[in-house]
């Protein structure tokens, strides 16, 4: 039995504090996010990244910019 492939966007942040600030803000404002280990596509970053569905990305970007929480990297990943 095979599972459906899904596409997600992963946002990377400069620091753990920024990642957790973003998680708290987005969850409070109704944008579901899942903390994930920063994927290799993010390159030099490590630590906590946030995964969300592509349809929420624009809103997430706006909300984070308004709160002065910087996004350091953004990649699209496939998940099985």
């Amino acid at each position, binding site marked *: 039995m095979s599972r459906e492939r899904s596409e997600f966007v992963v946002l990377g942040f400069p620091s*753990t504090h920024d990642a957790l600030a973003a998680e708290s803000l987005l969850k409070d404002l109704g944008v579901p996010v899942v903390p994930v280990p920063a994927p290799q596509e993010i390159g*030099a970053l490590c630590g906590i990244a946030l995964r969300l569905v592509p349809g929420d990305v624009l809103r997430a970007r706006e909300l984070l910019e308004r709160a002065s929480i910087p996004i350091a990297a953004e990649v699209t990943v496939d998940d099985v």
Partner: protein
Amino acid sequence: MTELCPIYLDHAATSWPKPQPVLDAVVSALTECGGNPGRGVHALGLAASRLIFEARGDVAAFLGVPDARDLAFLSGCTEGTNIMLKGLLKPGDRVAVSSMEHNAVARPLHVLAMNGLEVDVIEADETGFIDPDRAEAVVRAKPTRAVICLHASNVTGTIQPIGDLADIAHAAGALMLVDGAQGGGHLPVDVASLAVDAYAVSGHKGLLGPQGVGGLYLAPSLQPEELLQGGTGGGSSELPTQPEMRPDRYEAGTPNTPGIAGLGAAVRFLAEDGRAERQRAEEAALVGRLAEGLAELPGIRVLGPAPHAPRVPVVSVVHDRVPADRIAFTLDKRYGIAVRAGLHCAPWAHRALGTLGTGAVRFSVGFGDTADDIEAAIDAMRAIVKEGA
């Protein structure tokens, strides 16, 4: 209070006992959030990361720090003063520093002075107060990189006019750097309205947290060199240099998660229902009565402000015949009263007060102390000086 120590009057060294939520938070951090914060995205690592994130927000709010990223968690106030001084001051710079400083400032300045920092002292008056006019004269005498003054004296309890000193510093193009070890908790601290450039705070004194944790606020415009380089969890791990983003830059290595958890719980406890304000009012009443009662004893000289003048809850005394160490020992062994004798890691302040040769007995009041404790301490002192005179 316990069989071992019925009356604890050494809060300026370390506050004790701690509120129950502080103890619970330390245990919970170890039992329920035992991962390494910022280093793993498994459940225990995330729990530890969130614990520190929340504590940082709560401590920042309590100290009036507008952006929590500007508050670094450190091993204590001393690490904070070392970062602010060694990270910002260069050979050839000149600083104006109060004569009441603790060794947390005096010793780093000594090292810097050996390497070419020019250190000019602003002399305190007889109450330990740094008069702004006197400070301004020292600051204006030469180009000045920084004005340095502790928020409150750990020897006399004298509260310094930090806002005025910050204005003087900034008018001269200098930074205002503050050792807030005795300020946090005992005074309402709002770094934004004080307009200081750096403020180091101890977690285990008036803030009622555990030992081994403190904080450093740095104004967004400042970028002091970090003292330590190492892992931070986030950022660009492959780079050989320490990341510049805050708070990571100043938090190399695994943080003291249980200590930070306790500190976070402590400030939430203090912030709840105006408890901090009530605690400060109680402390002011108790230390006022203590200073008054001690001042009435024959042969006793109370250092610092007049008995009921504003001070943080610290009062130090000398007796004209009984040495400070003997008084402290007798208070402990015969009466179960914990105080501290000696120089209190503040030889500069004792020099300014004329007590460098004798030291003093310091009584410092805080959470858990009662009016009965204060009367017992005065009664014990009355008996000791009567016997020793």
